[in-house]
C-alpha cells in the first residue's frame, strides 16, 4: 500500500489550479494503492458523468449502471492512465463506449416495443427518478425540453453543452460530417429556445 496523500491534505483546494494539481496527486495515490483517493475522484466527477450519459441514453437506470461500471473500469485500469492527461476525458470515453455497448446490446436483444418499456422511448418526456435530483421547477422544464429533442439533436446538444466538445470532436465521435454538427446544433438550440424562452430573460 502506498503512502496516503489524503492524510496530509484532507480538503483539497477547490480553485482551478489546485484542482488540477490535487487531481494529479489523487490519481497517483490511487495508482499507489490508495483506494480512498479514488473515492474523491468519484465524488468530483460522478455528477457530470451521470448528466452526460443520461443525456445520451435518456434512461436513469442505464446511466446509473454505466457510471458505476465506468468508474470500476477506470479503477481497474488506473495504472495505465498517464497523469499528464486530464482524468475526466478518459473516464467519459470509457463511459461512452459502455453506453454504446449498452445501446447495441439492447437493440440486438429487444424489439423496439421493449425499448420503449425500458425507458428508451424517444416520445416520452417523463423524467422518472431524475425528478428527485432537480430542485427547481425550471430545471425540470429544462430537462424535459432536452429529452423531448430527437436523439440526433439531443446527442449533439449534450456533447456541446454538457461536455464542451468542439464541432470537430463531435463530428468524429458521431461519425457525421462537420457541417451536419453545425446545422443540427443550430436546430437543437432553436427548438430549445422556443420552448424555454422565458427562462432566458436573465
Amino acid at each position, binding site marked *: 500500500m502506498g503512502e496516503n496523500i489524503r492524510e496530509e491534505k484532507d480538503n483539497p483546494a477547490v480553485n482551478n489550479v489546485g484542482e488540477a494539481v490535487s487531481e494529479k496527486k489523487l490519481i497517483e495515490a490511487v495508482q499507489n494503492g490508495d483506494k480512498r483517493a479514488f473515492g474523491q475522484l468519484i465524488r468530483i466527477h460522478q455528477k457530470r458523468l451521470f448528466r452526460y450519459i443520461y443525456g445520451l441514453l435518456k434512461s436513469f437506470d442505464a446511466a446509473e449502471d454505466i457510471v458505476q461500471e465506468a468508474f*470500476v473500469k477506470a479503477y481497474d485500469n488506473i495504472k495505465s492512465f498517464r497523469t*499528464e492527461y486530464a482524468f475526466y476525458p478518459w473516464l467519459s470515453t470509457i463511459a461512452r463506449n459502455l453506453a454504446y455497448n449498452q445501446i447495441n*446490446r439492447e437493440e440486438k436483444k429487444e424489439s423496439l416495443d421493449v425499448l420503449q418499456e425500458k425507458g428508451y422511448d424517444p416520445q416520452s418526456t417523463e423524467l422518472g427518478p431524475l425528478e428527485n435530483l432537480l430542485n427547481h421547477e425550471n430545471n425540470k422544464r429544462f430537462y424535459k425540453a432536452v429529452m423531448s429533442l430527437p436523439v440526433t439533436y439531443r446527442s449533439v446538444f449534450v456533447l456541446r453543452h454538457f461536455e464542451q466538445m468542439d464541432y470537430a470532436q463531435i463530428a468524429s465521435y458521431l461519425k457525421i460530417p462537420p457541417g451536419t454538427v453545425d446545422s443540427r446544433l443550430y436546430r437543437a438550440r432553436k427548438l430549445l429556445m422556443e420552448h424555454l424562452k422565458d427562462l432566458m430573460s436573465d
Partner: protein
Amino acid sequence: MEHSYFKDRISAYHDRELKHEEEQLIREHLQQCAECRQLLDELEKFDRMVEKHSELAGGEYWEESARRIEAAIRPEVSTTTEVTRISSYSWKNLGWKLAAVAASVAALAFIAFHEGDLSREIRQKVGLEPSGDQKVITAPADAPITIMRVVPPPESADTTLSEVGARIDVKPRKGVPTEGETLEIRSDEFADGYPKPERVRLAEETLAVSKEAIQQPASGIPKAVADTATLGDETEELSIPDLAPEKEADSYEFSAVQLVQDARLLTDSAAKARSEITVDSGETRIVTQMERKDQELGAEIAVKGEQDIVRLAEEASSLEMWRARRDSLSDIVSQSEKKREEPSVALEKSFSLRAPEASDVPADSELMYMDLKEPLDKDQLKQVLDSVYNEVIRHDPEYQLLEAQYQVALLTTDEGEHDQSVKYLRDYLEREDSAYKMQAAWYLQQLDEID
C-alpha cells in the same frame, strides 16, 4: 449574400467555429443586421440558461451513489486488504484460466439459481441438496452474484478450480436484500498439497456437471455458459447469453446475464494484465484488445444509428439551408480560386511541424493539448491527425461546398438541380487542382452516380 445564410451561421460563429473568410463575413454582416445581432445575443443568454438549469441537485443521492461505486471497487466482505499483484505470476494461459474460473462460477451460480429446475439427483451430486452428511451450500435464491475479485495462484498449468487457486468472494449486488448466506469459494489456501475442502470439491463437481449439462441445451442452461466454458486463450469476449425461454427461469435472466458479464470482466482484467506485461518488456503502448473492441463497436454503432436518423431528420427541412450555403460558398470558392497559388492559410497553420504549445489550445479545451515529453504512440498520433484533419477541412470552403452540393443533390426533388450538383462533383473530380477528390468520389458513390 442572403440574410438567411448568415442567420444559419450565427450559431457556429457564436461557438467560434468559423475561421478566416467566413468569420470575417459574418462580423461585417452583424454590423448591419439587427436581427442577427439579436440572435447572437439570444445564443449567449441560451448558454447561460443551460448552465444554470442543467445543474443536478440531490446531495444525498450522490453520496449514496459514490458509496455504491466504492463498494463495487472495494469489496467489503473480505478482510484481506490488498489485491495480490498479479504481475508476479506466470501469465502464460492466465486469460484462459480466468475464463475457466469464470465459467465454473457462472455455472455454479446458474445451478444455484435454477436449483428448482434441476433434478434431485444432480442437486445431490453438486451439493445443493443434502445427501447423507454433506454440507448444504445455497446462494440466496434472489441474490444475483457479483464476482468481486480473483487472486491468481502461483503458476500452475492445470485448470481445475483448486489448482487455478482462484478465490472468489461473492456478495449480493446493490438493491438486493442482503439476507441469506454469502457464497464463498476459497481454494487458494489449499492450492498445493493441502487437502481440498469439501466446498472446493463440490465446486469442481459442479463444473463437471454443468459442462455435461451444457451439452444438452434443452435443459435450460444458457448457451453462453457453454461458450464461457470453452473459451480458448485467444478469446477475449464472452457473448451475452441467449437465454432459453423457460418460464421458471425468467426472473433469473438478469442474474445469468450479469454473471456472464462479470465473467467478461475477468477476462478483461486478464487482457489488461497481458498488456501490463507488454509494457514491462519495453513497449510503449497499453491498449488492450477489449479497449480496442469497445472503440470499434462504439464507432460502428454510432455510424449505423446515426446514418438512418440523419437521413430522416434532415431531409424535411434542410434543403433550403444547403442551397443557401452552396450559393454563398460558390462565391467564396470562386474568389479564392483566383489566388490559388498561395497555399491556404488554414492548411499551412495546421500542418506546421512546430510542436504545439499550451498557448495554442483554447483555455476551455480539455482534450487535445498534450505536452510532448514523450513521442506519441500510434493511437494518439491518429487521434491528433484526425482532429487536425477535421479542423482543416471544416474551415475550407472548397470542402464545405462539396458537402453542400452533395446534400442538395441528395435532398432535392428537382431533377435539373440534382444533375447540376452531380455535374459539379464530376467536374471537380476531373479538375487537376482539386484537393478533396476522394471526398467527391465518395459523394458520387453515395449518390450512385459513379460506377
